């Protein structure tokens, strides 16, 4: 069946769906296989973006001897935070994706290691008004050199309630539909086949086995800790752009 574009001026809904399946217009969630676009769906937009480099300072090796260990040291550890973004309170804590030197790492992933285990872990903490990068580091016998890391952060919109007095508005550069649920002032995410800005996933990106850790990023990059002895191969993902 040919695709059908239909707009309802009363509800403000705009949809492209498979012609002859009118239920796809009135009940899109129950007929997703017939829907190509429906403005009442909660499409994911990007509300805020951060691109930048954070200079992580050097961390000294531990100097504290362990009374039980002749040539090894007790670990030193600490944390430091950097605010990446501040934004108006959206009324909820938004989701986001953090890209670290071009890779999407799992939460609390190591981004630097020296020697057997002196390591620097990073994670992203979200609030209703900010996105905060947090470093957790620990050192044993080896220090951690200063490190510049390039971060990209995409903060997403959540489900948007209907609001305003316009059910449907179309201008040359903006489209508002379904009484504000769809608003192209947000940059909506689209699936792309190549050169994505980030990837959306539905499964694991890390595994443990034999006392070790393997990370397989959504882009397929494998990061082992030298101890892992399993066979984790990652999870398929969908590349996206804005």
């Amino acid at each position, binding site marked *: 069946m040919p695709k059908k*574009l239909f707009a309802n001026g009363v509800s403000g809904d705009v949809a*492209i769906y498979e012609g002859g399946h009118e239920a796809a217009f009135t009940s899109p*969630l129950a007929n*997703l296989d017939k*829907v*190509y*676009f*429906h403005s009442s*769906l909660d499409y*994911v937009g990007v509300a805020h973006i951060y691109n930048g480099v954070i200079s992580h300072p050097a961390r000294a090796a531990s100097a504290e001897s*362990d009374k*039980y*260990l002749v040539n*090894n040291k*007790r*670990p030193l550890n600490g944390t430091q935070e950097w605010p990446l973004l501040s934004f108006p309170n959206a009324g909820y*804590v938004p989701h*986001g994706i953090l890209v670290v030197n071009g890779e999407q790492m*799992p*939460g*609390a992933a*190591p981004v630097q290691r020296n020697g*057997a*285990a002196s390591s620097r872990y990073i*994670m*992203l*903490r*979200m*609030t209703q008004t900010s996105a905060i990068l947090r470093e957790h580091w620990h050192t*044993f*016998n*080896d220090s951690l050199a200063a490190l510049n890391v390039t971060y990209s952060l995409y903060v997403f919109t959540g*489900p948007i309630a209907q609001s305003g007095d316009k059910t449907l508005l*179309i*201008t*040359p550069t*903006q*489209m508002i539909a379904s009484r504000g649920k769809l608003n*192209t002032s947000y*940059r*909506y*995410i*689209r*699936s*792309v086949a190549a050169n994505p800005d980030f990837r959306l*996933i*539905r*499964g*694991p*990106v*890390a*595994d443990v086995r*034999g*006392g070790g*850790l393997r990370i397989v990023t959504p882009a397929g990059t494998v990061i082992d*800790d*030298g*101890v892992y002895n399993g066979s984790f191969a990652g*999870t398929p993902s*969908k590349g996206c752009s804005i």
Partner: protein
Amino acid sequence: MLDLSFHTSPNRILVKDAVGHTTLDTSQPMPHILQTATVSLSVSFPTSGSSNSHQHTTASYMFNYQDCQMQYVCGYQNVCVWETRNGVYGYYCDNVNVCEWKNVCTTKQGWRNEVSCSVLRSYQAREWEQVQNIASIINGIDADFIQVKVSGSRTAAGTDPWYGTFVGTLPAGEILSQGSMILESAFQPGGASWLRRIMSIYVENGIVKVKFKSSNKAINGRSESNGVVSIYYDPPSQGTPVNYPDPASSVFDFASSFNLTFHVTIGKFTQ
């Protein structure tokens, strides 16, 4: 003439912003949110089985002692008496063979043996996982993606033989998990990883689930000396033996527990 950036046809809606960036293009699959869920749950990672091996070493210390025994001893000796011999009263001594019971002592070497014990506890390798459900997806839809933030705290922390509490990285607040999240790590002397704990959030059969995994290598704790556990003498007559039971080594409990809240957005791409 203004180049209009809103284009529509039965197959496509394309909107570009004032600087030409595409903000909506229905010709490419677009992710949308099916539902959100906030679910709290707990997980307890188990410890590993362990056993003790005892090593005994004996230190011996020599000493001299007097070995005395009652003996019936005969020998010539002068025996003097006042008496009359041949009509003459006097003090007469004779060398005669005399037999008698005597306490006879000799110097001998003895040994004090002190047995010391050291204990080495060995921990077994363990692979462990647990799956818990977070949310059922509406209409049983097979979601294409999930976005997850995690908040929570570690309510009990495992310890290791060298460095104490396992390294944990879960701070207060809502943290992006991005598919998986590393919860705990532990390291041997020098730093090689021997324990890792993670959680991964995934979609399976219309249900969002979390899988907790723990993996640790077999390790030996440090050898602990528990001093002298017994003393005995050779010969036994030279002292009362002392015996204490072999003590157990310190036991390091690898168990950790977390209370976690998952803030999940479940979504699908339109066609």
